C-alpha cells in the first residue's frame, strides 16, 4: 500500500456561522497549496449528509488517505467525521479537525484576522494530518462476574442486584459474618424500623443465592488485570472449624475457657465473647470461628489437657491444623463497599472518653439500647450492685466531624439523625430522663428527617447550641463545660451519661484497597469517585465501582441507592459482554527506553509496568503499557526524557510540525 499522504481538506461554511467572518474561498485555495493536499473543497454544512458524502466520494475517487475538516470544535463533530471516514473504508483516526468556528469565527470580528487565523489552523491540521497513523479500536471480552469487597448493607445490596440479574458474584468479607455496621444498629432513623429485621433477610439471601459465592473471614490479597478481566486472589483465613460440619449450635463457645473474657467486636466492647465465637446471634454464615489471637490452644499450643471446645463439639467440626486457603478467580467488575470506621473518641481527650466509663460513643449506646445487646436493651451503667440507670443524659454532636483539629473537615451526615433517634430511644426506655443535645447545627435534610427532629424535640429533648470545651468528673457526676452560643451563657451541666456522636472516618486499612486497585482518595481521605456529580459510583479505574461509606459518609437509604447504582454500572459492563479500549493510548519504544520508571510513577492508572526485555543478550527492564488500563492522558509522555513513550495521535512527531506551522508569521 502506498502510504504517501493524500490529504483532503474540507472547509465548512456552517451556514454563515463561519463564512460570516472567515473568507472560505481563500482558505480553501490556500489549503489546496499545502504539501500533500490533493483535494480542498468547501461546503455549507460539512456535517450534513451531503457534506459527508462529499468526503466519502473523494476518498474513493481521489484515493485520499487523510482528511482534514475545518469546521466546528472536534468536541462537537469529531465522532461524526470519524464515522464518515470509517464508512468510506478509511481508518477513523486519519481525521484531523481545525476548529475555525468556536475558536475562530465566533470569537473574532475582523474578517482579515479571522481568515488569517483560519489559514494557520488549517495549515496546522494539515501538518499533523500528514503524520497521522491508523489506530486500532480494540475490544476485550468481559468476564461475566463481579467481585464485591465488603459485606455490609452496601455490598449486600449490590451483590443481590447483580446476582438477581443473573451474573455471578464473589463477595469477600473480612469478618466472620456479613452484616456490617447496620447489623449493630438497634433502630433506624427516621422510621424507627428495627435494623436487624430489615437486614437479616438480605444477609440470608446473600448466603443462599445460587449466583453468590460468599467468602467471609476472607481477604482480597491481589487484584491484577483490567476492566473486564481482573484476576483476583483471595485468602480464606483458617477458622479452625470445618464449615461443612459446624451446625452453629454454640456448645463450643459455652465450653471455652475464655468464655465472657474477650471484648466482643460486635458489641463494641460493651459485651464479651469466647475465643470461639459467633459474632452475633443472627450472623451469616451461622458458623463458629476460632479467634487465633486469643485461643489458648492456638497461641500457647496448650489448653488444659485438651481444648474443651473441640471435645464438646457434637459434630467434630474442630480442626486446629487448618491452614489459610487461597482462592483465585476472574471477574469483569469490582465493587468496593468496604465501609468506614467510627471516629476514635479518645482523639478528643477533652471529652474524657478514655477516662470515664460513663462517656460512651453512639455506637456503644446503640448496643446498650439494642434488645439484642449485652443488657438486653436496658440502659444501665455500672456493674452488679453499682448498676444504675442514668437520668441526666447529654449527647455531644460533631465529635470527629467538621473538626479541622482532628483532620476531618467534612460532615458525617448521619450523626444528627442518629442522635435524635438515640435520644428518642432513651426517652422511650427512661421516660423520666433529662436528655439534652449539644450541637453546632442540626442538619435534617433527608426524607422525613425534619419531621423526626421535630418529634424528638416535642418529646422533650433539649437542643443546646454549643460545643462543649471540657468534660470532667465532680463527685458521681460528669460536668460538661460549654457556652450556650444562643444565649452567650457559660454553662456547667452535671450529667450521669455523656454520649459522643462520633463521626465516620475512612477505614484504617484503606491503604490495602488503594494498593490493590490503585484507587485515589479525595481530600477527606474517602475513595475518590470519577466525577463528583456525573460519575459518583465510578472510579478512575475502569470496571471498579464504589458503594456505601467507602466513598464518603452516608446513611442507609443513600448507601442502598449507591449500591444499586454501582450494581447497575457493573451490570452495564457485564451484560454488554465487551469493553472498548481507548485507541489514543501510550506506547513504548522498548529499544530506547532508559528504564528510569518515571512513567510508572506518573501514570494515574497504574497502566504502565516495568518488564524484562532482552537487549542483545542483556536483560534490561523496560516500560510496557497495559492497553486496557491506559486512558490516553499522555502525562507519561511529557515525563519521558528519552521520548520513548508516545501517545498515539499525539506523538511528539505529530505535535512539533504543528508548532512549526503556527510559528510562521
Amino acid at each position, binding site marked *: 500500500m502506498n502510504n504517501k499522504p493524500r490529504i483532503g481538506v474540507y472547509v465548512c461554511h456552517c451556514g454563515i456561522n463561519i463564512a460570516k467572518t472567515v473568507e472560505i474561498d481563500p482558505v480553501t485555495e490556500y489549503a489546496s497549496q499545502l504539501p500533500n493536499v490533493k483535494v480542498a473543497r468547501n461546503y455549507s454544512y460539512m456535517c450534513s449528509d451531503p457534506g459527508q458524502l462529499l468526503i466519502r466520494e473523494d476518498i474513493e475517487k481521489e484515493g485520499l488517505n487523510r482528511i482534514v475538516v475545518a469546521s466546528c470544535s472536534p468536541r462537537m463533530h469529531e465522532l461524526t467525521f470519524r464515522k464518515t471516514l470509517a464508512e468510506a473504508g478509511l481508518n477513523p483516526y486519519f481525521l484531523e479537525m481545525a476548529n475555525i468556528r468556536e475558536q475562530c469565527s465566533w470569537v473574532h470580528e475582523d474578517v482579515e484576522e479571522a481568515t488569517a487565523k483560519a489559514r494557520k489552523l488549517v495549515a496546522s491540521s494539515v501538518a499533523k494530518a500528514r503524520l497521522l497513523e491508523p489506530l486500532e479500536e480494540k475490544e476485550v471480552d468481559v468476564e461475566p462476574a463481579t467481585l464485591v469487597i465488603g459485606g455490609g448493607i452496601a455490598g449486600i445490596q449490590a451483590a443481590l442486584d447483580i446476582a438477581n440479574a443473573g451474573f455471578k458474584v464473589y463477595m469477600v468479607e473480612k469478618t466472620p459474618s456479613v452484616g456490617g455496621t447496620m447489623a449493630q444498629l438497634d433502630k433506624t432513623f427516621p422510621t424507627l424500623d428495627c435494623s436487624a429485621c430489615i437486614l437479616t433477610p438480605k444477609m440470608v439471601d446473600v448466603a443462599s443465592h445460587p449466583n453468590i459465592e460468599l467468602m467471609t473471614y476472607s481477604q482480597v490479597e491481589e487484584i491484577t488485570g483490567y476492566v473486564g478481566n481482573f484476576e483476583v486472589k483471595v485468602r480464606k483465613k483458617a477458622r479452625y472449624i470445618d464449615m461443612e460440619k459446624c451446625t452453629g449450635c454454640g456448645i463450643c463457645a459455652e465450653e471455652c475457657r475464655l468464655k465472657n473474657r474477650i471484648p466482643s467486636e460486635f458489641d463494641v466492647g460493651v459485651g464479651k465473647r469466647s475465643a470461639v465465637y459467633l459474632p452475633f446471634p443472627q450472623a451469616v454464615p451461622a458458623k463458629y470461628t476460632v479467634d487465633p489471637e486469643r485461643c489458648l490452644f492456638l497461641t500457647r499450643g496448650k489448653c488444659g489437657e485438651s481444648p474443651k471446645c473441640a471435645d464438646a463439639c457434637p459434630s467434630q467440626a474442630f480442626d486446629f491444623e487448618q491452614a489459610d486457603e487461597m482462592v483465585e478467580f476472574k471477574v469483569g467488575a469490582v465493587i468496593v463497599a468496604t465501609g468506614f470506621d467510627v471516629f476514635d473518641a479518645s482523639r478528643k481527650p477533652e471529652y474524657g472518653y478514655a477516662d470515664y466509663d460513663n462517656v460512651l460513643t453512639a455506637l456503644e449506646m446503640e448496643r446498650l439500647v439494642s434488645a439484642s445487646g449485652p443488657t438486653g436493651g436496658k440502659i444501665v451503667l455500672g456493674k452488679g450492685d453499682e448498676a444504675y440507670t442514668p437520668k441526666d443524659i447529654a449527647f455531644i454532636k460533631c465529635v470527629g466531624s467538621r473538626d479541622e483539629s482532628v483532620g476531618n473537615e467534612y460532615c458525617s451526615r448521619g450523626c444528627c439523625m442518629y442522635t435524635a433517634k438515640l435520644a428518642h430511644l432513651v426517652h422511650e426506655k427512661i421516660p423520666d430522663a433529662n436528655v439534652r443535645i449539644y450541637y453546632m447545627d442540626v442538619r435534617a435534610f433527608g426524607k422525613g428527617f425534619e419531621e423526626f427532629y421535630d418529634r424528638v424535640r416535642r418529646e422533650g429533648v433539649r437542643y443546646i447550641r454549643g460545643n462543649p470545651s471540657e468534660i470532667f468528673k465532680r463527685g458521681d457526676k460528669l460536668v460538661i463545660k460549654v457556652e450556650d452560643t444562643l444565649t452567650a451563657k457559660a454553662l456547667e451541666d452535671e450529667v450521669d451519661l455523656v454520649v459522643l456522636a462520633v463521626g465516620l472516618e475512612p477505614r484504617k486499612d484503606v491503604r490495602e484497597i488503594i494498593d490493590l486497585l490503585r484507587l485515589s482518595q479525595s481530600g477527606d481521605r474517602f475513595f475518590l469517585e470519577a466525577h463528583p456529580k456525573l460519575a459518583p459510583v465510578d472510579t478512575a479505574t475502569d470496571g471498579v465501582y464504589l458503594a456505601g461509606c467507602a466513598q464518603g459518609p452516608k446513611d442507609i437509604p443513600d448507601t442502598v441507592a449507591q449500591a444499586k447504582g454501582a450494581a447497575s454500572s457493573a451490570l452495564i459492563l457485564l451484560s454488554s459482554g465487551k469493553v472498548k479500549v481507548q485507541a489514543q493510548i501510550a506506547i513504548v519504544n522498548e529499544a530506547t527506553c532508559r528504564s528510569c520508571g518515571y512513567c510508572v510513577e506518573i501514570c494515574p492508572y497504574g497502566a504502565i509496568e516495568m518488564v524484562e526485555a532482552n537487549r542483545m543478550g542483556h536483560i534490561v527492564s523496560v516500560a510496557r503499557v497495559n492497553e486496557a488500563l491506559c486512558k490516553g492522558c499522555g502525562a507519561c509522555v511529557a515525563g519521558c*526524557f528519552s521520548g520513548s513513550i508516545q501517545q498515539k495521535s499525539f506523538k511528539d512527531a505529530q505535535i512539533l510540525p504543528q508548532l512549526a506551522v503556527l510559528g510562521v508569521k
Partner: protein
Amino acid sequence: MVDLDKLRTVAKETVSRDDVKYLIGWSQGTFGYRVSPHFVKTPQEVDSLTFSPLCSNNLATYLTLTEKLPVPRGEEPDTRKVALMVKGCDSRAVVQQLIEQGITREQVYIIGCPCQGVVDLQKVDEKLGEGVEPAQASWENGQISFQLPDGKTEAFPREDVLADKCITCRYPNPVLSDILLWDEVEVWGSDDYEDVKELDSKSPEEKWAFWQDKFSSCIRCYSCRNVCPMCYCEDCILDRLNPTWMFRSNNVVENTAFQVARAFHLAGRCIECGECERVCPVDIPLMKINRKLYKEVREKYEFEPGLDPESKPLQASYRPDDEEDFIL
C-alpha cells in the same frame, strides 16, 4: 585522612572477588596535574590507583556509559558487580541512578572516599602553569600542596584552588557506600546560591545577553551531556531526527535550546558534581544554570536529589499544594 595503602589493599581485595567484574578508580594522568579514570581488572593493576585533590572525575558516569555489548549466542551476559570509587558528590550520582533504576544496588560495589574537595585545574594552571611532566597534589592541613616535577612543593589555601562546587559542597562524604576507606571529613560548605541570585536579579535583557555570549561559543561536542552521570539515555532525544527537537546546526539559537533542554532534563536530578562545567572545552558556566534549578527545586519542593535511594523522582511526583503563584 587519605590512606593510599588502604585504598590499594581494598582495591586488591575487591578485584579479587569472584562477583566483581572490575573496579573503577583514579590514576596519575599522562601530563601535568591530570588524572585519568582507571579501570582495574586484576590485583596487579591496583598500584597505580590514587586519590588526591586532582581526582575530579565523577566515575559514576561509567556505570551507565559503558556499553552493553551484544552477547554472543549461547553465552551469558556478565552480570558481576562493578566496583566504584566515589567521592561525596559521586555517591549522590549513584544514589540518583538507583532511584531511576539506571542501575540496581546489586550491580555496584561502592567504595567511599571521603573527600576534602578537588581542585579546579584552571585555577592551578594560573598559579603553577600547565606542566608536561606528571605532577601530584595532596591535602595538607587545610591547604592543598602540589608536588612539582622539579621536586619542589607549593601549597595554597584550599579555597584558592578548589573547584567552585567544592567550596560550597555540603556532601563531601559518600551518602551511600559498601565500604568507607577512611574517616568521614567534617562538612565545611554551605550554599546560599549567591551566584545564582546575583544573575537572577538582573533584567531579562542582561540575562539574555549573558547567556547568549556563553552559548554562542558552544561547539555542540556534547561532552557536558556525555560526562553527566544522569544523562544516560542510550538515544538522547536531542540527537534524534524523527522527531527533530533540536537541529544539529551550530548557532546560538539552537545552542540555547540545547542547553536549556539539557538543564531542564536535569531539574531535580543534577547532584552538582560539576563535571559538565569542568569538561566544557569552551568554558560555558553550565553549573550556573544547573544550580538555578537545584535552588528552585530545593526551595519550592524541599527536595534534593541523590540522597535517599527510596525517594520518588521529583519530576515523577507532585504535591496537590505545590506553589502556583504564576498561574493565571
